[in-house]
Each structure stands twice: as structure tokens, then as C-alpha cells.
């Protein structure tokens, strides 16, 4: 079993299963905060999947997409936090 097979048959299934498990939390909630956190974690694990995928296909260009995904995940979390807090805040 060489490195390619190991990554393809062991590491990628583990990562896919983990993102599936996180998606269960995304579906069952219960609060909107849990959903935001689950979305953030799905994207973070997605960055890991992209890293492994770029090794398997021998294409380092995929890592650029990982950079942009990291940016979008942070932006999404901050935006959700900001507007959820603002929703029931009352300034005098």
C-alpha cells in the first residue's frame, strides 16, 4: 500500500465521515448558533479535504481555493455573529 492508496482509502473516508457527522449537527440544530458553528466546521474540514486531494492529484493549485475558503469561513462567522447580536439589541 503506497501513499496514494493510503490517502485515498483511509484518510479521505475519515474526513468525509467527519463532515457528514458535522452535517447532522447542522440539521438538528437546536439553536441558530449551533448551525453557524457547524457550517464553520464543515468549511474547515473542507480545507483539510482539499489539502489531501491536492496531494492525491499532484496539483498544488487547489491550495489557492483552500485560502479563499478560509477567508469566506471567517467572514461568514463574523457576519452571522454581528447581525444575530444586532437583531435583539436596543440602543436608547
Amino acid at each position, binding site marked *: 500500500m503506497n*501513499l496514494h492508496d*493510503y*490517502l485515498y482509502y*483511509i*484518510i479521505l473516508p*475519515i*474526513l468525509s*465521515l*467527519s*463532515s457528514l*457527522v*458535522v452535517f*447532522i*449537527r447542522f440539521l438538528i440544530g437546536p*439553536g*441558530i*448558533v*449551533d448551525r*453557524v*458553528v*457547524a457550517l*464553520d*466546521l464543515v468549511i*474547515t*474540514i473542507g*480545507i*483539510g479535504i482539499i*489539502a*489531501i486531494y*491536492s*496531494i492525491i492529484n499532484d496539483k*498544488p493549485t487547489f*491550495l*489557492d481555493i*483552500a*485560502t479563499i475558503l*478560509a*477567508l469566506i*469561513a*471567517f467572514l461568514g*462567522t*463574523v457576519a*452571522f*455573529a*454581528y447581525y*444575530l*447580536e444586532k437583531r*435583539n*439589541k*436596543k*440602543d*436608547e
Partner: protein
Amino acid sequence: MSELLIYILSTLGAIFAMLAAIGILRMPDAFLRISVTTKAATLGVGLLLGAAALYFNDFSVSTRVQAIIIFIILTAPVGAHLIGRTSYFLGNKMWKNSVIDDLEGKYDKKNHKLLSEDVAEKNIREKKEEEKK
């Protein structure tokens, strides 16, 4: 030698990502979920990206990987803090076995300003006396 390191890093990274996933499913309240995902997922993804950097062994790729890792390490705690603060304001209950809530009574519920310690203690005492009546 380098291949062995790639095996080790990718295995550890996958294990930590899996632990984060199990943690977000099994933890009892929103704050514990935020805490577990921030730490375990950051470490796991960092290790997986490190495996990619070792595999390509190229200056441009390892610079890119470093940029991603540093960005994730910088932004994960900031995002977790913001979403945790929001969760506190939205009134999410803590787990029933949690020991202490340090912020109890210290936040003004209307305009979200942080009160000083003695004002907060006075508020809590008044609330308890009202409950007694």
C-alpha cells in the same frame, strides 16, 4: 523519511478532524461545542496542510500553506469569541452541570454594555431578594 512524516501528519490530522466532528455532535451545549470545534479542528487542518507542504516540497507551495495555517490560527479564536458572545446574548442555556457563569448579571441586556463588578453583584443580590419576597 519524508514519506513517513506525511503518513504520520495526515493520520494525526484526520484523527483530530474526526474528534472535532464527534465533539460537535456529542457535546451538551452551544458553548462547549464552540470550544471543542475551534481547538481540535484548527490543529487537525494545520497538520493536514503540513502534510501537503511536505509532499510538494516546493517554496511557493509551502509559503501558501504557511499563509493558510497562520490565517486559520489567527481567525479561529476571534470567530469563536464573537459567536460565543452572540450565543450568550441570545440567551442560550448552559449545560446543567456547568460550574460557574462568570458573566452572570454583568451584561446590560438591553444595550449589551459590560457593567463593573460591584454593580453586577448588587444587581444579583437585588434579584435574589426579590425572589425571596
